[in-house]
């Protein structure tokens, strides 16, 4: 818990700063709207966490999100009956892309940075080859409901997020979680103690693919079909995970902190917007904060290591 504390402090400070500028922010509707907006990125961060903590990268999630939304639109084409089969198909597709990423990385021994970069190119090219350049068809109202609608006062996406977060936290406390971290920490040692490293890492990629599918369903639901819905999400997700104190290279960090990192990033965007920081300076502020956050984490690292092993 001590390890993950800084990100929660930062998140709390940001939320307070937002609340100072906009007193309504902490009232349930506004706050739920904020959580709803952050949900896709938080889910992506949870998936990306699984890959990163096992010692790999997943750069393909952004284009996977775009591909999923475009596929959904074309296959559903406004029809209510097609909605649920297509949602199931999207989930399967997400898992499948993760499986391919994992197999190519572990069995063919291509560095995951390159595997997923290749997957990024292939997905973004293939999807528009299939649709002839621009999205076709339309999403049904039923599909949109998940990202747009709500159950009483609570948006569906917030409920889905809660389920995902609970599942992620549980999985990381279970044996699977320990194995995943062990593989990222030292895959050789893990292999020697009987862990099937390739299989564990492949599962991590499949979790990331699954997260991308869920995020795509929420994003497509929230804002509709667009050719650039997933643009830049891979970097945002990695940034969020790193903000949460998870080390690139694997073996350290908690999934709850990674998700808090995603919330922090979203809160940061909201805050910059609220205080009217010009759109131009936004990336610069973001850049400084990322470097600072990771640098602070790294400086404290030796002490933590002792704490963790003792």
């Amino acid at each position, binding site marked *: 818990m001590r390890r993950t504390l800084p990100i929660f402090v930062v998140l709390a400070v940001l939320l307070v700063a937002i609340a100072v500028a906009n007193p309504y922010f902490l009232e349930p509707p506004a706050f739920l709207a904020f959580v709803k907006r952050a949900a896709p990125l938080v889910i992506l961060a949870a998936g990306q966490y699984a890959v990163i903590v096992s010692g790999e990268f997943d750069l393909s999630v952004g284009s996977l999100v775009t591909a999923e939304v475009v596929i959904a639109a074309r296959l559903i084409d406004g029809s209510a009956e097609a909605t649920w089969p297509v949602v199931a198909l999207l989930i399967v597709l997400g898992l499948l892309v993760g499986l391919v990423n994992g197999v190519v990385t572990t069995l063919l021994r291509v560095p995951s940075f390159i595997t997923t970069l290749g997957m990024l190119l292939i997905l973004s090219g293939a999807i528009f080859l299939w649709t002839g350049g621009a999205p076709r068809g339309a999403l049904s109202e039923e599909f949109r409901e998940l990202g747009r609608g709500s159950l009483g006062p609570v948006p569906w996406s917030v409920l889905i997020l809660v389920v995902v977060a609970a599942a992620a936290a549980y999985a990381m406390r279970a044996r699977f979680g320990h194995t995943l971290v062990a593989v990222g920490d030292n895959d*050789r040692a893990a292999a020697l103690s009987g862990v099937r490293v390739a299989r564990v890492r492949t599962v991590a990629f499949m979790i990331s693919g699954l997260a991308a599918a869920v995020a795509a369903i929420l994003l497509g639901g929230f804002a509709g079909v667009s050719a650039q819905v997933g643009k830049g999400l891979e970097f945002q997700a990695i940034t969020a995970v790193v903000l949460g104190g998870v080390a690139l290279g694997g073996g350290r960090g908690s999934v709850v902190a990674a998700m808090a990192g995603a919330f922090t990033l979203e809160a940061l965007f909201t805050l910059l917007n609220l205080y009217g920081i010009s759109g*131009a300076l936004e990336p610069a502020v973001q850049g400084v904060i*990322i470097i600072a956050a990771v640098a602070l984490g790294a400086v404290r690292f030796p002490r933590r290591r002792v704490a963790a092993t003792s």
Partner: protein
Amino acid sequence: MTQQLKLRRVSAEGSFLRRLSADRPARPVYLALVLLIVLGWLLFALDGGQFLSLENVVGIQQRSAALGIVAVGQTLVILAGSLDLSVTYLISLTSLVAAEIMAGSDANVPAAVAAVLAVSALVGLANGLIVTRLRVHAFIATLGVALIIRGALDERYDGPAGSVPASFQHLGYDRIGPLPVSALLWAAVAASVWLLLSRTRLGYRIYAVGGDIEVARLSGVRTERVVVVAHVVCSVCSGIAGLLLASRLGAGAPTVGTDGGYDLESIAAVVLGGTALAGGRGGVAGTVGGVLLLAVLDSIFNQLEVNSFAKDVVRGVVLVAALAIYARRRRTS
């Protein structure tokens, strides 16, 4: 992701520095390049065209020069076990610095070149120090620096700015026979870095640091300094690419770097050339081959009028397949 590789490499011991710098992984990429050229020649012949026409040969070189220069720099940082994602925005920034200082006058060219080299060296220094002193992973460090430069660009520029005098445009447009000056500049940069890697102590140290930073440190290499210098040289290469692009465009443009996608594409070219992403293995010759491979592929796509989506698919497949083959060779050899 790198631990297995590292462990295996340490066991090579003894003369491993010298063997690695022999740059053997470059061979397959040149083989692929020759095959691709033959294929291109066939395709063009069937189409009634001429693959090795002057326009085409010049075009291939012109198209690859800027990426080539960036990729040579990227090779250095990757060999040292680092990475640079800030090259795109640095290229845009330096193209603007160059064009604005030149302001259309010949007299300002030396000042502009000096300023570009200074700015890019500074950015490289920042990258290197953040990676080594602050211990930020290179991916995040250079991504952060990229965002900072982007903020500065967005804040200050909203379109092409400055202007390059006619004399400086010779750099981008002139050629000696079939060899464009830009390609010669690329060759000069590549040759310098090749010399640096294969003939100097710094070169050996870069391989050593990328191969295993702990072993290098224990054998007395000041690893931090090596990584910083690699970053500085890489950024200077981006600055040179920025100068070249400014000369091509006749002005500086805040989007020229991002449009070119030089960050991921230069990394792709480097690994296509057989350099290990984890560092310590590979070299400039392979990178040059990787860039040429991409450029010839592009030229064939152009001839066939393949749309850009199909191009992306092919590029992705080529990239992954090439790396899978390299990994296989490494295991079997």
